């Protein structure tokens, strides 16, 4: 029990690191994911091909390999950034592929008539997508995006093994200080549950407020 009370600031720092990673990478993933989803339904073939390639490659790359390539490979390449930024880039790029697929599935749930009506009003593709279809799709993609972001929070644990400050990484200093390993992990688990349950709660609330069943 006193693992937590003695090392409150260490746990707090770790938890804060996890929260930061989740929020920053989540924002990046949402932005990139929606953009790539737009590419994948666009009339320009080159953009569609690019979008498909992006999603296929990132969905099928193990996240550990991506971390390995970005955090250990890029510095050799002459790109030197803080590890935190690298971790956000890797997590964000990886998750964006899943967000893209969720958004694309959401776009397909919007009735055809909506897009047709927008076009018959003379709207262009960008207008149709951003003003008519996406706002409606957003309501039906809340649950899948929620579970993708929860998975992102869980995946952020990998960053700890690549010298980024986050929750799982706290086990090492605690172990060195001689605390019981089981209780250390119990509190780490509780920390992750706090993050994931909060996310689940927020998205549940969003769904109740905005969601529609299609």
């Amino acid at each position, binding site marked *: 029990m006193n693992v937590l009370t003695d090392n409150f600031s260490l746990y707090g720092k770790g938890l804060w690191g996890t929260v930061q990673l989740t929020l920053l990478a989540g924002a990046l993933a949402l932005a990139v994911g929606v953009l790539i989803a737009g590419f994948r*339904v*666009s*009339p*320009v*073939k*080159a*953009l569609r091909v*690019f979008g498909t390639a992006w999603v*296929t*490659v990132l*969905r*099928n*790359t*193990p*996240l*550990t*390999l991506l971390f*390995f*390539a970005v955090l*250990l*490979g890029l510095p*050799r*390449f*002459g790109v030197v950034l803080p590890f935190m930024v690298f971790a956000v880039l890797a997590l964000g790029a990886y*998750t964006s592929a*899943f967000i893209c697929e969720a958004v694309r599935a959401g*776009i397909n749930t919007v009735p*055809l008539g909506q*897009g*047709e009506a927008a*076009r018959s009003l003379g709207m*262009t*593709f960008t207008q*149709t*997508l951003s003003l008519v*279809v996406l706002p409606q799709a957003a309501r039906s993609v809340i649950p*899948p995006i929620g*579970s*993708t972001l*929860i*998975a992102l*929070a*869980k*995946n952020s*644990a*990998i960053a*700890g*093994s690549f010298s980024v400050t986050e929750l*799982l990484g706290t*086990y090492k200093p605690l*172990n060195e200080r001689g605390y019981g*390993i*089981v209780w250390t*992990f119990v509190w*780490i*688990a509780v920390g*992750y*549950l706090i993050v*994931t*349950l909060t996310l689940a709660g927020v998205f549940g609330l969003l769904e109740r407020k905005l969601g529609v069943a299609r």
Partner: protein
Amino acid sequence: MTAGSALYDIPGPKALARHRLYAWITTAVLVALVGFVVYKLVDTGQFSAVKWRPFTYQGIQRLLLTGLANTLKAFGWAALASLVFGVVFAAGRLSDHRVVRWTSTLVVEFFRAMPLLVMIFFIFIALKLDPMLALIIGLTLYNGSVLAEVFRAGVNAVPRGQREAAYALGMRKTQVMPYVLVPQAARAMLPAIISQLVVALKDTSLGYLITYQEFLYSGKLIATNLDYDLPFIPVVMVIAPVYIGMCVLLSWSANRIARHERRSPKAKGVTVTTALPEEI
């Protein structure tokens, strides 16, 4: 979506010209980006003979192949064990006995909510198991729990009439499940099961973090060797296509099965749609 997409009109000559322009711009930007990356790679000496020579050594090739074999071994065992785990706990969650149902639900929900890496580290550090065993057990607990949800969703998605008809014919509880519900559910679940196996295959690379001698770990051993001038980028260039290739092959077979199932006349009778748990 019959003629093209509902999102844009069928392009006329002007729009076609504009789309061609966009296509050219996209291609130009991508080519410029690839060119820049290649330039940077050459500039930082990533194609130097020193960094690539290790891959011609037989010892290094054997190291990589052993790593790949270890990855596939962990994947095979984990896949098998998580299928068994999934079946057992799905049956538990569908049980008529409240205690069994609640315990299974608790177990499945707990292991789904925990980050896989936390479980693997816990098994590896606290229980002091061998890295391979820790990886396989961790993968089994996580993927098995997700598969249990897939199986449960699949069985529940079979139309209620099927179960009722089976009971009306006088079948027992233990007959209804294997003879009526599972065969119909399995058809719909197969793509979801395979995509979960892709996740398991990807997650075997977590073994790298607990020093299990798998594919990525072999790569790391080569990449951190000073004699070869730290060939990180060449190692990634060799390893990434193999991982991506294996996963694409599995996902592709999942898609093929899904498409085949949709067209199969046998699937006409009942359409079973499962809400897939997240595969990530």
